[in-house]
């Protein structure tokens, strides 16, 4: 058995016995090594060194909060920690990939929607998707949904927006001011949502 394996067995025993310093020794002994293993195995998937260190920290904390789950007869403590960190690394990488996909799709939707040459049925279909999937985050007051749909369909006419807002009776200047204000708000919310996704 290696010196480190001996040391880890000792730390495990001390932690089970309630020694408050065992956790610090565990960090000192394996934190960097677990991080380095995870980094080597997942850097190709976009994992950074800092991510790997955080995953190592979280794996050690998970072990410390439930040490009885670790069975020393089955593996070394270092292997056990790498196994926990590896699972979390895969979850992190997958979640980032999904976020990226979601963001690309969102950007694609908003950009395509404002393209004048786009097919009308397609525009309507994707506008439906944005309203369905993200409406709760964009629509806040009466008229927002109508403005959002017109915006996504690439509508530029102030008159159309004013009609949707029930403001056709206002003067041309008032209409322009109101429409600009409402369109700007919707656009900002779309941009914020895009950054979040």
């Amino acid at each position, binding site marked *: 058995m290696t010196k480190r394996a001996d040391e880890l067995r000792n730390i495990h025993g001390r932690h089970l016995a*309630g*020694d*408050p*310093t*065992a*956790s*610090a020794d565990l*960090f*000192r002994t394996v*934190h*960097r090594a677990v*991080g*380095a293993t995870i980094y080597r195995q997942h850097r190709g998937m976009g994992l950074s*060194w*800092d991510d790997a*260190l*955080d995953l*190592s*920290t*979280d794996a*050690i*904390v998970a072990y*410390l*909060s439930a040490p009885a789950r670790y069975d020393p007869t089955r593996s070394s403590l270092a292997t056990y920690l790498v196994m926990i960190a590896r699972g979390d690394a895969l979850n992190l990488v997958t979640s980032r990939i999904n976020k990226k996909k979601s963001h690309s799709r969102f950007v694609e939707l908003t950009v395509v929607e404002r393209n004048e040459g786009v097919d009308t049925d397609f525009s309507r279909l994707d506008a439906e998707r944005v309203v369905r999937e993200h409406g709760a985050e964009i629509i806040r007051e009466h008229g927002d949904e109508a403005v959002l749909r017109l915006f996504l369909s690439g509508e530029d006419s102030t008159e159309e927006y004013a009609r949707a807002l029930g403001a056709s009776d206002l003067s041309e200047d008032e209409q322009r001011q109101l429409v600009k204000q409402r369109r700007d708000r919707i656009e900002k919310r779309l941009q914020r949502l895009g950054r979040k996704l």
Partner: protein
Amino acid sequence: MAGDEHTSAGLRRALARLTYNDAFVASAYQDVSGSRVDLEQIAERLATDLNTAVQVGLCRRPWASRPGFATDTAKIAMHAGVRPDDLMDLLREAESLRAFRVGSSSRDGLLAAARDHHKGGPEGTDVQ
């Protein structure tokens, strides 16, 4: 990425991640520091260097209100080579500050509730 310097930076990063985890002394550092942990100040209080302050922060946190406080604190102090009294003072102060913050937010809540009641309930309606 090899070497003591990197190991130390890695452990400091771990410590920063644990400041919101009550199981570690790191959370006591957070309690005495307020919004952002000032590790240099902590090291100064413990009359030690930054790396030792990190090592202490990674230990399990003893609570003055729970059994074994003096024994565990002494164990940590001896392990890290800091004065037990310094560590005990810091942990006690951290716990008092925590209790004070929790107490003051509860008091604020009670005062707000009392104000609402005086006005006739949170929505301005009478409480039955």
